[in-house]
């Protein structure tokens, strides 16, 4: 995760932090405008409901405002807010999508002797026009939405947000082995869910 290695940025963050701690309304407005879009995008990826995502972002900001005096400045504000919105989303996820829905139907199937059944069909080479990139982005979001919540959270934190296994496991409150298992099943299920798109239809 990023740390304040850029000196100019570190100085600007420090100045903003001083104003935040002094209760400067404009400083809070700056903070929210600078980070809300990024936080909302993350929340929408973790939670399939847009309204829940907005609520999670609001909760996260309010939690951050309350905790601003304890923020030690070792991480960037954006990194710190990222962590808070992840927690806020995971709390909602546990409430809104509690049951661990089965993922088995989305995993590959095998014959008794361990061979693929059916044999996997190759994906054609990717196309790369701008419109197709946008359509692919939508298809990925829809596929993520169809993943059971625990697998979605593992994939979003690792493969989208770039946390390492230790960070993602800590955020989810599980061990690294369990994290890797959820991540692996989530990736396999996504491969299946993306199949129609990648085969060239249904963009």
């Amino acid at each position: 995760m990023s740390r304040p290695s850029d000196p100019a940025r570190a100085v600007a963050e420090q100045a903003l932090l001083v104003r935040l701690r002094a209760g400067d309304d404009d400083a809070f407005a700056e903070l929210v405008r600078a980070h809300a879009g990024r936080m909302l995008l993350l929340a929408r990826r973790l939670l399939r409901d847009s309204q829940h995502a907005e609520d999670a972002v609001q909760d996260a900001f309010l939690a951050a405002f309350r905790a601003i005096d304890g923020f030690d400045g070792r991480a960037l504000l954006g990194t710190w807010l990222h962590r808070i919105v992840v927690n806020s989303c995971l709390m909602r996820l546990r409430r809104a999508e509690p049951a661990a829905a089965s993922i088995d139907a989305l995993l590959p199937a095998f014959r008794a002797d361990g061979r693929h059944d059916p044999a996997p069909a190759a994906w054609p080479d990717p196309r790369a026009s701008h419109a197709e990139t946008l359509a692919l982005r939508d298809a990925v979001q829809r596929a993520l939405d169809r993943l059971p919540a625990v697998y979605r959270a593992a994939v979003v934190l690792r493969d989208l947000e770039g946390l390492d296994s230790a960070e993602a496991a800590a955020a989810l409150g599980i061990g690294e082995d369990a994290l890797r298992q959820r991540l692996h099943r989530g990736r396999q299920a996504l491969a299946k869910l993306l199949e129609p798109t990648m085969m060239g239809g249904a963009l």
Partner: protein
Amino acid sequence: MNCRELTQALTDRREGRLAPAALAALDAHLALCPDCRCYVDKFERTITTVGDIANAPPEPAPDALIRAVLDARRRGG
């Protein structure tokens, strides 16, 4: 190693968590199995494709959300 075991080992392989013997068995199976080479391609492209959407720049948050956050703070939320 059979196809089932190979597909189950792909995340561990990416994370560098396979023992040398398991890695050698995986490579040996892969060299002989077109189905698994196909599956590995799809698995890896899935991860790349998902990672690509991470680079999409976020849209600005709706003004209503920004106002709601700032209003809640002023109310002492």
